[in-house]
């Protein structure tokens, strides 16, 4: 059997599991112990098959179902296979975690959740496989609806409902844009196969319109500014494994779509396409990271961080498009590789972080950062594994997050002179912004990890928190292992993305990387730049051991446990001391002050005379206030105007008919 059959079999397997879980609607044990692990196994299978398919020639298949004359066409090529790897990775770990996670009902029967979950998995897989516009759209929207249903699992909460609504609305509007995009791409041929779309040569103006629509449509799904508003609402509302899947995998399907349309179907375009993506990407990255530092809810923090990461990925794609437009294939390959590596890297660490929040949520029932703290002592497994994710999220070596950051900065730096002076001036600025974003991501991650896991527990109930169960640990370990192992072996990643970049921009990094062995990453020659994570880790490790050796070996100080120093005052009770710690708001305060223009802040400050002082600060998104609300108001105002048509008076209605008739007659006469 060839790869595509296996992949279809796996997707079918998920659908089968979905159906099976409908049969055991309320049997939590069966769903948790059998169905989710089986789903995870299929995810692993997908990963294996996709890894093999990535290095094989493209394969096509046709299903019997579909439109008349347009059966569903499927195809797996290097690009698709890469994203199937992403899906496989995400699903495998998340399903393992879910096996332990869904022990109690989340507002919806476990069987139903499992149904929606597995349909969601199959839809994502088929989105990547789709080889015609119809199949793509069907799967795309199935993915959206199934994830919507997962988001609204706990629909008894009003906040969850409104989050779900916003999500599906923006997803649908995005899908509408995609529909128009495909409408343009098919160019009146009525043939929606991608192979046909690829072969058509569109008028440049039309292809730019199609590009714009694709950016809008995929941007809405990926959470690009200013279409990001659903993301920080929906991700916190969903059960944590679902947040993990949505953030780590589903957003990537939008990236896949963007690449498929811009670089595969349209085969690149004028240089300013890249600039558009670059600008949107950077805006998202900056806005995402700044907002994530000031959040006080852990999953919202991560959701904003996802916006940031998507922004970085799109920045990389934008750069690749620009280089591609100027025929600089090597540089385009570098930038694209950076983006693609980041796709996988983000999948690993963001899943890890979201699943970590899931474990915390289960153990404490608390999602507000202001009421967490000190969990490293009661939940060591989760804490240490999440630490790996947080460090990767901060873009620190030797974890996987650093690889993509490194590649991206390299592609900026190695920019030789572009034939456009404007761009030449722009590139350094962009590089600076990227550097700033990455540094701020570190800030956010320190806040995330520090406030949840370190310090004193801010609530008494946190002392009773229990560590994650075996299945959950397994899921976390899968991702944490990936974060570290891939961080140490970036050459594996380069191998994996090489066929993709070759396919899309006509060059790959693998040969350059091969030249220096698998330990060293040097995409453009050793003398220009190199990064050897294994040596790096060994270096740090050896030096640290050296420090320990010096400290322990030569000198003989003893170690004593004592209460923390209380600035000379009598030691406070633990409870009081916990309240003295920096709160989540406090930790974000400097950023809030520096980037004040980003936010719409409303404060409620206590007066000196208040007997029970209250401090409240509400941070809102300016884009929400200045773009979305006016649009909503405009729609309502139009609706009010239109509503006047229906006055209830039959004479008026007759007049409409009469005038319509007259106008039509006049038209005929003319």
């Amino acid at each position: 059997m060839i790869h595509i059959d296996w992949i279809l079999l796996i997707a079918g397997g998920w659908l089968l599991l979905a159906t099976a879980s409908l049969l055991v609607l309320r049997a939590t044990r069966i769903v948790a112990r059998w169905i989710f692990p089986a789903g995870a196994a299929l995810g692993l299978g997908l990963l294996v098959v996709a890894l093999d398919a990535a290095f094989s020639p493209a394969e096509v298949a046709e299903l019997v179902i579909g439109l008349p004359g347009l059966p569903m066409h499927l195809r797996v090529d290097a690009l698709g296979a890469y994203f199937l790897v992403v899906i496989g990775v995400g699903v495998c770990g998340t399903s393992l975690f879910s096996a332990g996670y869904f022990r109690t009902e989340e507002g919806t029967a476990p069987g139903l959740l499992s149904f929606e979950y597995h349909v969601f998995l199959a839809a994502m897989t088929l989105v990547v496989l789709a080889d015609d516009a119809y199949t793509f759209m069907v799967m795309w929207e199935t993915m959206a609806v199934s994830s919507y249903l997962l988001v609204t699992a706990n629909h008894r909460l009003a906040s969850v409902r409104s989050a779900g609504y916003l999500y599906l609305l923006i997803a649908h509007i995005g899908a509408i844009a995609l529909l128009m995009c495909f409408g343009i791409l098919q160019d009146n041929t009525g043939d929606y196969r991608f192979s046909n779309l690829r072969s058509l040569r569109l008028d440049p103006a039309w292809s730019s319109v199609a590009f714009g629509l694709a950016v809008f449509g995929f941007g809405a799904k990926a959470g690009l500014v200013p279409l990001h508003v659903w993301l920080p609402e929906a991700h916190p509302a969903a059960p944590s494994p679902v947040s993990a899947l949505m953030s780590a995998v589903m957003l990537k399907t939008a990236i896949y779509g963007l690449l498929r349309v811009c670089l595969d179907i349209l085969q690149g375009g004028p240089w300013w396409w890249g600039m558009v993506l670059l600008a949107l990407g950077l805006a998202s990255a900056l806005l995402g990271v700044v907002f994530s530092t000031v959040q006080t809810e852990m999953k919202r923090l991560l959701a904003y961080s996802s916006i940031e990461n998507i922004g970085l990925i799109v920045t990389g794609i934008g750069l690749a498009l620009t280089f591609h437009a100027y025929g600089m294939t090597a540089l385009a390959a570098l930038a694209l590789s950076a983006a693609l590596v980041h796709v996988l890297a983000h999948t690993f660490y963001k899943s890890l972080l979201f699943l970590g929040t899931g474990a915390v949520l289960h153990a404490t029932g608390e999602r507000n950062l202001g009421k967490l703290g000190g969990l490293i002592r009661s939940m060591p497994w989760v804490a240490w594994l999440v630490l790996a994710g947080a460090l990767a999220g901060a873009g620190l070596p030797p974890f996987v997050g650093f690889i993509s950051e490194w590649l991206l900065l390299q592609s900026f730096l190695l920019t030789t002179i572009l034939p456009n002076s404007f761009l030449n001036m722009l590139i350094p600025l962009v590089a600076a912004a990227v550097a700033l974003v990455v540094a701020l991501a570190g800030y956010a991650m320190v806040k995330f990890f520090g406030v949840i896991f370190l310090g004193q527990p801010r609530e008494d109930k946190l002392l009773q928190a229990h560590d994650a169960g075996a299945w959950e640990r397994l899921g976390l370990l899968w991702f944490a292992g990936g974060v570290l192992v891939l961080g140490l072996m970036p050459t594996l990643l380069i191998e994996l993305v090489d066929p993709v970049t070759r396919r899309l921009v006509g060059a790959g990094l693998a040969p350059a990387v091969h030249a220096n062995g698998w330990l060293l990453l040097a995409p453009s020659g050793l003398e220009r730049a190199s990064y050897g994570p294994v040596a790096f880790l060994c270096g740090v490790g050896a030096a640290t051991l050296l420090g320990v050796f010096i400290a322990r070996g030569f000198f003989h100080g003893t170690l004593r446990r004592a209460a923390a120093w209380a600035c000379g005052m009598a030691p406070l009770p633990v409870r009081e001391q916990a309240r003295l710690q920096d709160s989540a708001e406090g930790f974000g305060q400097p950023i809030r002050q520096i980037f004040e223009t980003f936010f719409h802040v409303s404060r409620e400050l206590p007066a000196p005379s208040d007997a029970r002082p209250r401090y409240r600060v509400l941070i809102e998104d300016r884009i929400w206030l200045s773009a979305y609300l006016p649009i909503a108001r405009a729609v309502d105002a139009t609706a009010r105007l239109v509503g006047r048509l229906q006055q209830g008076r039959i004479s008026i209605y007759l007049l409409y008919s009469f005038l319509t008739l007259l106008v039509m007659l006049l038209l005929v006469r003319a």
Partner: protein
Amino acid sequence: MTLSGAVAQLLEIALALAGAPLLLGWVDQCRARLQNRSAPPLVQPYRVLRKLFHKESVVADSASPLFRIAPYAKFGCMTLACAIIPTVSTDLPLATAADAIALVGLFALARTFLALAAMDVGTAFGGMGARRDMLIGFLAEPALLMTLFCVSLITHSTSLANMVETMNRRPFGLEPSLAFAGIAFTIVSLAENTRIPVDNPATHLELTMIHEALVLEYSGRHLAMLEWAAALKLFAYSCIGLALFFPWGIAEIDSPLAMITALPVLVFKLAIGGVSLALIETISAKMRIFRVPEFLATAFLLAVIGLLVHQLLGA
């Protein structure tokens, strides 16, 4: 990896470990002289380290293992940083493991560890110190990266050894972008090494502390490791600055013997650098913490302007 490379690498590490406290002592001495105080001896930092190593370490009850690992991790990071920065030779086997970007990442890693450790105990000052340190870090880090990029653009490389070599070899010429980068780098170094005007390493007033607040809970050998690591960091920064902006006198691959001559040149350059640092610290006053972001943003902007100038002049 050649034998001479290995020797140079070991020599560099040894030099850094041994010499870093000396540099700190030299700066302190100069500053005391400039401020008309009686100067401590040059080996004062060594004495402090020795004293700390002999004291008992008191660890807070609530501290997790992270708290105890952090000092060593920071020490390890700084040692590696010193190992990959070409001080006396550019033929360094470890240099391929990390280029300029990874170097910045290395500093960030150390900072993150320390900030997390400071939050671990759960005291008011630990968290405050962590927050302030990360605040400085998020501005200083991109600024540092940008200054390094200024040089990278000239040398078409981000490999430190290669950058230094190229800077060393190129014919002497005025490079305006480097001037911007140099100023930016100075500012960043001051901030990163907790010197006045950003932070006062000698302060004991909790509310103004940054670095001291981070290490408030540490004592004994852990504090010693941190102090040593801080000295290493100052050494590393000084060396990068000197190597990139005043690269003359560093030994290259093809002339291993030049290392012998490189050492005195380095000592000389460090001495001059120490004096200038002391001078800056003497003539400026510590600024309020809220001014620090502006100060660092200036550095960031200067570095970016440096990049732009480089592009504009069409290097």
